[in-house]
């Protein structure tokens, strides 16, 4: 006799009485039975101080510029006061860096330089959680990203370059590569600590000294890094950190006392810097904007391609130079991919960056938000179709819902200009040649993605793409051992890997 199967609902009716019975009811349509409760990371972990100062010649002191408030973009509340650098601080810092370069840093055996970098890497690991929470507060990115990507990657970058310090003769740069001297470095707000690591680690490993200006809206983790360097007993003047605005950055890169400029930021400013450096003997590397094509072929592993598209444009709220901001999808599967993408976007959680379940955090500043809005509006006026999943946008703070545009052509502004926000433009293609042509049809050339199960296609398309980083069946993968940098107006020079040493030595 077949046992009659009693439905769950009937069972609940039979055995349960009051609503607090543990038996779960059948799932009514339209409800969210598994609502994730708030899971906030503790803000106190950041050990936020009321004020932060410039770091010059091994000491913290008040800068001679303005005192500004660094605010939390998630709620527009001030986090701390930051004493910014003035032009006189730039002078002092460069002088201190020069003294350190000509004195203890040059005299030091290379292996010892490396050991300082190992110490710094270790201290970043020890203070990882504090740095992650601070980064999230200052930048607006989800704690999940600062904790799982930014901070570990920063530590790894120091570890990697620590090991090169006493092995430079094997790097393919000649038997005894010499450092350049004092490096002036200006970094952006999208990965504040990581960008500081990308700049400082190779410079120090090769024997240079550094004056670094973090972005004006995100100075805090760079200043804690300065503290870590002091704790590591790094000789004074080897690294100097000057929080400040564009004018300080300009004073730094145009100063005659530096031998090398390293800049990550917008293409517009990169061009200004190149003009300014003309006629000087300063070495220059630039890591600028992008408008990367993420190319999905009809034989792509579809579920993972959808993940790759999402990571490509919504990681860090799309505020990434190498973001996959153009989806080039083969026409035969375009509808299917867009449907799957839209469905996937409904599971993205936008909200408090300190909540461990948040996927999409805040935009870094009011200015950036205004730019994103302006370009997105152009998308609509130029005739593309706009779609966003339903999102609960917090009242305060700078927020932009993930957005997809379909019906986009190469001529649209949203296909040509870098939005630097969570906005994806979808275009189609029919053949690999057409995909390559569209992907390359841009002044930028930082990165690209290829999705196909066919190896010969990956290698062929990768060879034809004019982009410095090509990801196949993945996206947004970074490793200190892998060189990163652009073609064309996305900049020149490479960071990471053996090649990342070249920018800092006299070849």
């Amino acid at each position: 006799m077949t046992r009659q199967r009693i439905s769950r609902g009937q069972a609940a009716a039979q055995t349960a009485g009051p609503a607090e019975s543990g038996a779960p009811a059948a799932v009514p349509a339209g409800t969210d039975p598994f609502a994730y409760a708030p899971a906030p990371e503790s803000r106190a972990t950041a050990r936020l101080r009321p004020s932060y100062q410039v770091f010059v010649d091994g000491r913290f002191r008040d800068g001679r510029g303005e005192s500004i408030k660094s605010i939390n973009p998630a709620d527009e509340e001030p986090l701390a006061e930051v004493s910014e650098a003035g032009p006189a601080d730039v002078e002092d810092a460069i002088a201190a860096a020069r003294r350190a370069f000509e004195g203890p840093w040059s005299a030091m055996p290379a292996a010892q330089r490396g050991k300082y970098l190992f110490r710094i890497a270790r201290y970043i690991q020890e203070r990882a959680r504090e740095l992650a929470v601070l980064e999230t507060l200052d930048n607006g990115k989800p704690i999940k990203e600062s904790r799982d990507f930014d901070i570990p990657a920063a530590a790894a970058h120091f570890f990697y370059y620590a090991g090169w310090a006493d092995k430079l003769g094997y790097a393919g740069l000649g038997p005894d590569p010499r450092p350049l001297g004092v490096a002036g470095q200006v970094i952006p707000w999208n990965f504040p600590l990581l960008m500081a690591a990308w700049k400082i680690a190779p410079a120090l490993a090769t024997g240079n000294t550094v004056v670094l200006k973090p972005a004006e809206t995100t100075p805090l983790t760079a200043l804690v890094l300065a503290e870590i360097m002091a704790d590591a007993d790094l000789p004074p003047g080897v690294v100097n950190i000057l929080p400040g605005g564009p004018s300080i950055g300009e004073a730094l890169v145009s100063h005659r006392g530096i031998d090398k400029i390293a800049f990550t930021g917008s293409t517009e400013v990169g061009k200004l810097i190149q003009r300014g450096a003309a006629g000087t003997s300063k070495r220059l590397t630039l890591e600028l904007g992008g408008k990367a094509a993420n190319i999905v072929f009809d034989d792509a592993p579809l579920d993972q391609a959808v993940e790759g598209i999402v990571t490509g444009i919504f990681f860090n709220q799309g505020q990434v130079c190498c973001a996959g901001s153009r989806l080039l999808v083969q026409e035969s599967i375009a509808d299917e991919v867009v449907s799957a993408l839209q469905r996937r976007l409904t599971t993205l959680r936008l909200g408090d960056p300190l909540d461990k379940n948040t996927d999409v955090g805040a935009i870094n500043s009011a200015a950036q938000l205004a730019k994103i809005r302006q370009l997105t509006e152009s998308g609509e006026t130029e005739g593309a179709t706009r779609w966003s999943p339903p999102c609960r946008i917090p009242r305060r703070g700078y927020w932009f819902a993930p957005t997809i545009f379909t019906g986009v052509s190469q001529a649209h502004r949203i296909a040509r200009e870098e939005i630097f926000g969570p906005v994806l433009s979808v275009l189609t293609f029919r053949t690999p040649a057409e995909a390559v042509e569209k992907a390359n049809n841009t002044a930028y050339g930082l990165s690209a993605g290829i999705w196909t199960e066919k190896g010969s296609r990956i290698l062929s398309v990768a060879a034809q793409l004019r982009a410095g980083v090509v990801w196949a069946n993945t996206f947004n993968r970074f490793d200190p051992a892998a060189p990163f940098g652009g073609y064309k107006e996305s900049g020149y020079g490479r960071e990471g890997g053996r090649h990342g040493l070249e920018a800092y030595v006299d070849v």
Partner: protein
Amino acid sequence: MTDVLTVPSARPQSQQSPPSPQNSPGETRIGTPPWSAADAARDNASLRRFLHGLPGVDQAGAESRAAGLATRSIKTTAKAWAITTSISMIDLTSLEGADTPARVRSLCARAMRPDLSRPDTPMVAAVCVYPDLVATAVDALRGSPVGVASVATAFPSGRASLATKLADVRDAVAAGANEIDMVIDRGAFLAGRYTEVFNEILAVKTECSPAHLKVILETGELGTLDHVRRASWLALLAGGDFIKTSTGKISPAATPPVALVMLQAAKNFAEMTGQARGVKLAGGIRTTKEAVRYLVMVNEVAGSTWLTPDLFRFGASSLLNDLLLQWHKLKTGAYDGPDYVAVD
């Protein structure tokens, strides 16, 4: 080889109705599966082309997505819900050579009342035993809604004649099982004899109706996620009510990337046909943490429609105790120890 094949019969009424669309601006194509039984029987080559034509699975990408889902932090009310729901989704399992009627009776007692100190703890979904102990389980569970699932078809290896396997099923059903967990012929699958696998599932489904059928893929023997995807589709096309990862007798058993692929397959199948079929993860799931992670995966990959014992199960034994321990911790705030939950 059977030569008379019927189209899969209508599913028992206890099965879930078509899924409600979830914010789905794309189309949900409703229609019949692309393969009828007759087609499958006739043409292994075509069935193979269909299965091999399914999109590939990039392993690194699948592992990365699974790892990303595992970072969800489920606390307080959400955790409480997840624990009680997990309990209600368990097929409480004992599949040992040394099983006796007393052991099975003890298992059934726990199935109905997992935690005597908290009588409102939900019952598990079912118990899972060998066919010759089904009668004991039916007797012990009389009057309760807990189901009796029986493994069958020469579990766990599946290496026996079809006639033997069907007799195994018949015995279990006759003894009162209302769920059958069959194993596929992995040898036939890996050798590309898909029609043979399809027909076996069909035959078992016919034999066990109206009991519902779970099809064990034994993913640990399939070798790649592409195979897992194909085997999932094959089992769903042949009429399986549930696709199940493992027998629990080999390692690896259920893993996050495998679960991801199977949930995606069930979801895609539902989109294509309008029929929601279930997924059961079995083998190696011992902790609340793992169970909660899998519920997150169900929620975000298949959708909340699947968050019911009618469409999702854990095949487990020691998991129940860990869920109870975690429940105690949630309620009392103190960590508990194994002395405080009953053994069988």
